[in-house]
């Protein structure tokens, strides 16, 4: 994936979020540039998921602004969404579709990634042999890897992941961490929350703790 030189990524200015009138966080500012990873830490209910949903543009921040290449993400709309991929708590995998069908759908919804076919993506997450089995018949860990395979089939510069390692075994975690490393090396960006320590050896990491 060729990294475009000129864009300078996601910039948050004074973000604030209130959920049923409790101030989760306020005046949060950071700048996420190509090749950087944002790791969100904090206790349960400290607003990590809400912040991620704001980054995705699914939720309006109660105050402050979020800009992608200097442009407010809510004004960009689908244009911004074409550049991101999101995997939340729920996998977003349809149980009655096969692994291939799930990925074909994800590929159609986002900006298709010419470098990765569906089979190549399945191979990356070692689900190639389950390509035609229904998602219903896959284990929780395999379904999680299928959800993460979605990141590969679309050309997304910014990956936004909520607890990506849940229900993954150590082998699975290793696979996913290597995906992160390649993505960052290719000039991609990462925003992730995880109770599991994310080992990105030489990547440029920004840590934000929401519960301090």
């Amino acid at each position, binding site marked *: 994936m060729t990294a475009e030189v000129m864009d300078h990524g996601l910039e948050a200015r004074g973000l604030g979020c209130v959920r049923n009138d409790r101030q989760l966080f306020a005046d949060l500012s950071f700048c996420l540039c190509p090749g950087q990873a944002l790791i969100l830490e904090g206790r349960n209910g400290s607003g990590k998921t809400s912040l991620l*949903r704001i980054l*995705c*543009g*699914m*939720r*309006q921040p109660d105050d402050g602004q979020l800009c992608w290449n200097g442009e407010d993400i809510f004004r960009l*709309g*689908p*244009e911004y*969404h*074409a550049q*991101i*991929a*999101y995997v*939340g*708590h*729920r*996998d*977003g*995998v*349809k*149980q*009655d*579709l096969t692994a291939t*069908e799930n990925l*074909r*759908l*994800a590929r*159609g*919804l*986002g*900006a*298709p990634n010419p470098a990765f076919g569906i089979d190549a993506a399945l191979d990356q997450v070692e689900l190639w042999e389950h390509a035609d089995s229904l998602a219903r018949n896959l284990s929780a860990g395999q379904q999680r890897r299928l959800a993460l395979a*979605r990141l590969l089939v*679309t050309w997304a510069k910014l990956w936004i992941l909520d607890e990506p390692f849940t229900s993954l075994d150590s082998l699975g975690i290793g696979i996913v961490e290597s995906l992160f490393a390649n993505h960052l090396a290719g000039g991609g960006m990462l925003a992730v929350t995880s109770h599991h320590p994310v080992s990105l050896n030489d990547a440029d990491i920004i840590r934000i703790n929401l519960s301090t």
Partner: protein
Amino acid sequence: MSTASLNRAFALLLWRDLVLALRRRTELLNPLLFFVLVTTLFPLGIGADPALLSAIAPGIIWVAALLAAMLSLDSVFRSDFEDGSLEQFLISAQPLSVLVLAKVVAHWLITGLPLLIVAPLLGLLLHLSGASIGALLLTLLLGTPVLSLIGAIGVALTVGLRRGGVILSLLVLPLYIPVLIFAADAVASSGAGLPITAHLSLLAALLVLALSLSPLATAAALKISLS
């Protein structure tokens, strides 16, 4: 975001919903069974006098079709909401209203259109004349998509609620009234040999209005429900 990728996303989502519905084929019958069941209740309640039945048949069949369409609305977004795919639509590269339109068209093909298969049978059950059954099919063809389109707005507003079903009927049924009035009267008038072009053009106008406005409202409602 070229129109090619837009059409592909639309077709893909339509294909997905149809495949999902076919993989759970038994559930396809539920709206039809409900439609037939409700219609057969009326003669049991009102009596079997053919003249009376054929007089009130248009209203009965259309109210039953309307209720069947409304009850099947819940499936439009519920399963996607629960397994997280609805979030994927919100952050897709395609405008949400187009994806919503694809889902509503799929829902209409799965639940609305099949009502037309059963309608003639119900027409005979209630002694409707041949011309009326023809008008019934035409009005159902024009009316059921409007029911799905308007219903989608109600579903999008209540998708986040635990027991959204009850409220859905309160939100959606008042908006179904114009369709019911024009369609039921079209069937009645054709039975009396009157022309029904006025009714059909009004139904078509409602369809065009719903097609152009309701996906936007549904998309906005989804963004709010999921925020």
